[in-house]
């Protein structure tokens, strides 16, 4: 099976700080890859570079054989609207707060050319149900939703066009643990059902273990260790990974 996305030799320095130092990565269709590491290790920068939101100083990102940073902005936006999805840490960055829940879910459909109100609304209702939001709230503003609901709405809005690859930046950040657990459950079910490839950035090792097939550990802009999630977490090789795994609090 060929890789959906393949990145190699990525370099990006902010002044003297190396945010990305010779990072390479492959994601295969249907695979969930977690990037873990402490704050400032370059996780989010890597995500932004892979998603074409930021250009690397060196290296290439290939999606389906196409260079993400060499293609035009129109093509990249096209990908962002159809093949890709991006779930932000703060749902306020990913939602339109002055647009109803239904409009938020429908936006990508309309951007992709859907012009039948009834169908868009039916699809939005269906997606609200799938992310466990009461369809009766379809015309409510996201501002009136709780943090967990907003995050679920953002996921519905991203997945409605059935992307092949979804980038998630700390999707469970800022939520309390019971809400986190429900959200993780939901993401896991949707990912399996839709066969999505997901690249998830998190500092939550437990969330990574629950969701990810494979895991990359980053530190100072370098990938210090990678492998199957259970292998990395149960038998960490790199001293930093060992530290990271031993730092997880058990309730």
């Amino acid at each position, binding site marked *: 099976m060929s890789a959906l996305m393949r990145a190699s030799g990525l370099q990006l320095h902010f002044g003297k700080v190396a945010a990305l130092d010779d990072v390479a990565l492959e994601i295969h269709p249907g695979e969930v890859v977690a990037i873990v590491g402490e704050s400032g290790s370059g996780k989010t920068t890597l995500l932004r570079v892979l998603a074409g939101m930021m250009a690397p100083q060196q290296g290439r990102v290939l999606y389906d054989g196409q260079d993400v940073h060499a293609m035009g*902005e*129109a093509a990249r*936006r096209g990908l962002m*609207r159809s093949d890709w999805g991006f779930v932000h840490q703060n749902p306020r960055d990913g939602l*339109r707060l002055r*647009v*109803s829940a*239904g*409009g938020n879910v*429908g*936006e*990508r459909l*309309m*951007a*992709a050319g859907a*012009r*039948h*109100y*009834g169908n*868009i*609304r039916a699809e939005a209702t269906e997606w609200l149900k799938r992310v466990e939001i009461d369809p009766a709230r*379809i*015309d409510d503003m996201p501002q009136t939703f709780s943090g967990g609901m907003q995050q679920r709405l953002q996921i519905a809005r991203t997945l409605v066009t059935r992307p092949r690859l979804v980038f998630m930046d700390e999707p469970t950040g800022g939520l309390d643990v019971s809400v986190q657990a429900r959200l993780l459950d939901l993401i896991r079910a949707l990912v399996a059902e839709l066969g999505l490839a997901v690249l998830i950035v998190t500092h939550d090792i437990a969330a990574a273990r629950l969701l990810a097939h494979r895991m990359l550990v980053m530190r100072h802009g370098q990938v210090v260790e990678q492998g199957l999630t259970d292998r990395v977490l149960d038998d960490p090789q790199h001293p930093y990974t060992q530290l990271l795994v031993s730092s997880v609090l058990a309730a």
Partner: protein
Amino acid sequence: MTEAGYNFGYLDENTKRMIRRALLQAVALPGYQVPFGSREMPLPYGWGTGGIQVTASIIGADDTLKVIDQGADDTTNAVSIRRFFNRVTGVATTDRTAEATIIQTRHRVPEMTLREGQVLVYQVPMPEPLFRLEPRVAETKRMHALADYGLMHVKLYEDIARHGAVTTSYNYPVLVNRRYLMSPSPIPAFDNPKLDRMPALQLFGAGREKRIYAVPPYTEVKSLDFEDHPFKPARADAACVICGSRASYLDELIVDDGGKRHFVCSDTDYCASRPPLQEAAE
């Protein structure tokens, strides 16, 4: 006849040339907003400075000018702009749509079908159709460049979800030549169908925002809608009390303290050209 000390059409020749270049680009790219160096005009923004600069750049000595404000020839804005051009060019002015070669308009399209060779100049307060939805100008430009107009449909979706129908009754967004999203200026949605494949040239000038755009003759202009909620131009369900028309766009007048209402044609020339109600068969 013309005011001494002023160039023909008030603007100097270099300015007119600059505006004509912008107009040529606008005609070549139907619906695309061309930036231009808008000048200070001897009247405030919001009074038609964009339209006046466009008219001043295209008007010639043998043109006949008509100016309307909300369809009427006799309102302050129309009268003062007509007098202005009469003083700085000396060209003939008219109230008759059929006789005019240039019609400058604020917020209406004449009821009479325009013909080839006529030019309709719109005064535009806000040329950007996306501005209420996307506050960043750089972002709206990118959206136009990439024809990324899903957001406009989100607005229509919201209208239908909240009110059961699209509630935009004026300045209703249109797609020109299947490419650029365009604000038709605050004309009633009722007038939108007239823009589609109009034989006359349509020029739009926004003075404060410094933008010019155009729709060449016989260009497709489509009002945005949904397949199951097609575009419906709204019109008051009444007849004009003067001419009895049931086809023209109507203004609503409150005529006494009891709230009695009358409807009259907004297009005064159209109304005057029809037989008064006593003789009318309608």
